[in-house]
């Protein structure tokens, strides 16, 4: 295949994943957390597509499409939650949303 090998794509995917994870762990605004979450999902997608190209089967692409659907659904629900929270005049700060504590 022309261009760099599959390994390079995978390495990029990992670095992107780590970036997304870092974002989830470090940001306090739930909106940004959701965005970082999207980045992580996309990193996974990239890895899937790379492997699909490497093995020559299309299942990886199907999987990636399914992930995309799920990510969209999750974004809907997450944003709905954020809207509901802000409607109740609660601070949009992940550290303050702690009622579910043991």
């Amino acid at each position: 295949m022309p261009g760099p090998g599959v390994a390079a794509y995978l390495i990029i995917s990992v670095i992107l994943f780590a970036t997304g994870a870092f974002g989830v762990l470090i940001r306090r605004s739930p909106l940004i957390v959701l965005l970082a979450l999207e980045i992580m999902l996309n990193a996974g997608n990239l890895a899937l597509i790379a492997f699909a190209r490497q093995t020559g089967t299309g299942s990886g692409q199907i999987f990636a499409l399914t992930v995309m659907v799920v990510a969209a659904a999750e974004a809907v629900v997450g944003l709905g939650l954020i809207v509901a929270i802000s409607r109740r005049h609660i601070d949009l700060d992940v550290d303050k949303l702690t009622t579910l504590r043991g």
Partner: protein
Amino acid sequence: MTGAAWIALFAPAAAVVLIALAGTRIPRRAAGILAAGSALVSFICSVIAFVGLLGESPEERTHFSTLWTWLSAGRLQIGAQILVDPLSVFMMLVVSGVGFLILAYATGYMHGDAEERRYHAYKALFLFSMLLLVEAGNLVLLLAGWGMVGLSSYLLINFWHHRASAVAAGKKAFIMNAFGDATFVLAIFLLIQRTGSVDFRSVLQDGVVKHGSAVAVLIALGLLGGAVAKSAQVPLHTWLPDAMEGPTPVSALIHAATMVTAGVYLIVRTHVLFELAPAIQDLAGILGAITILLAGVVALVQTDIKRVIAYSTMSQIGYMFVAVGLGAYGSGLFHLMTHAFFKALLFMAAGIVIHALSDEQDIRRMGGLGRALPLTYRAFVVGALALAAIPPFAGFFSKDSILGAAANAGTLGWILWGAGAIGAFLTALYTFRLLFIVFWGDLSPFAREHVHVKRFEGGFAMAWPVAVLTVLSVVGGWLQVPWGWSLVNDWIDPVAESAEEATGVTFTFSVVASLALALGGIWLAWRLYGRPSGAPARVRKRWPWATRTLEHKFWFDELYDRLFSAPAAGMAVALGRDVERPVFLASLGGIATGVRSASRRLSTVQTGFVREYALALAAGLAVLAIVFILVT
């Protein structure tokens, strides 16, 4: 014939069930009549069985009869079976006959008691258990009867359960008997291991264990343990005097005539096993001899009328143990029968005295009752003469049969003979001490106040059984007359061949010597107690230490208390304090508290911070990745 035996067995059981079910719907007296009636039925059936056996030749007088297979465990099959043979019929006659007389007496004695019906039900239960014991055709059924007589004894000793002393006495009797039951059961286990069966036909064979082997000794020892406990021989004798807390008819039936003789019956029935371990058979004789002397001596200082008679029972059973220890089974059983007659007579007469004095039993308060209760006095005299073995009364023939066998049995036999002879002296002494103190002299102040005499001195119901027993105490001994005939020995021979008695000069010497000692005892009692004299008090002052030992019954009770009951009680308290409360009770609370605190500490992990949860996930992933790298 076996049918009659079955009816004899189940008649009292039916009486118990009927009395229990009828409850308070029947009048009190009816319960007593029901119980006594069932005893009469048993006696009639026993006579029928006896007559049936008479019609057969001695070799074929063994009939087994099984109703159903009671227990079945692999190879071991235990049937509900009875055995009708000379020995069991002999015991059945004694038990049901004397039992009937005492149950009839009890309808008068217990008249007016608040719980009379319960009493008669228990009495009938006892009769059923005792008949089961003597009729059983295998060891386990015998054990069942054995245990049930222990139970009936317990129930009847603490019949007046609101009396603390009665309750304690009942417990003591039951626990001591339980010890004997345990050794008995161990012997049964050994036999099952050897023969795979408990049927008398397989177990009581001559070659079942090797003669003199350790197993034989263990089996015989186990059986002896049970017999010693049930018959109140030394060292398991301390329960019998306390058992006098029960009503007098109970003492008469259970602790004189029947239950305490069950040990003797057991030894005769399993004599084959004892003959396979001669050391243990000798031990039985020795224990009997010790008991004769110990009980005889202690009876000299007793002040309760029933306790004197109780120690006398212990002593007389010692004679029976001496007999079976020497192999003179017929003599032992003969003495069992005559003893049942005159001992029951003595107890019943004592019961009339106690009733007449409104339940007073201390002889120091009695005196001169011969004038107030002449008929009872005469009955008591007959019983005392029989007990002291004066001819022609019953005890003379049976006791001399035993002493005659002892004289013929070598060195050990002569030692046992010596104990028996001294025992004859003691028996006469304490018996006539009792008679003189209670019946002679002037009416004591207490008696003058309290005595009340009914028609026939105790009511008709109490009088006629006493009369019957008086007659039996006179003629009962004539079944086996020296230099004449020996009906009892001949009857028992097919089952248990008796040892030879002495003949000729030895025998004459034995008879004359024991008679002389008995008369000597009566003379001494008359000297000390016949007239009011200070002699007993003087004797007591000269030997205070001996007096105290006798009064404390050779300190057996104190010894057992120190050895067994105090440590057991202490252990119970210690276990309750150190094990039960901290370990079991506290652990319940402790477990709950522990779980709660652990969960509280664990729940601090859930802080509610989403970022921390995410961090945990990421860290976990990192760790897993390292593991993955290292592993593959």
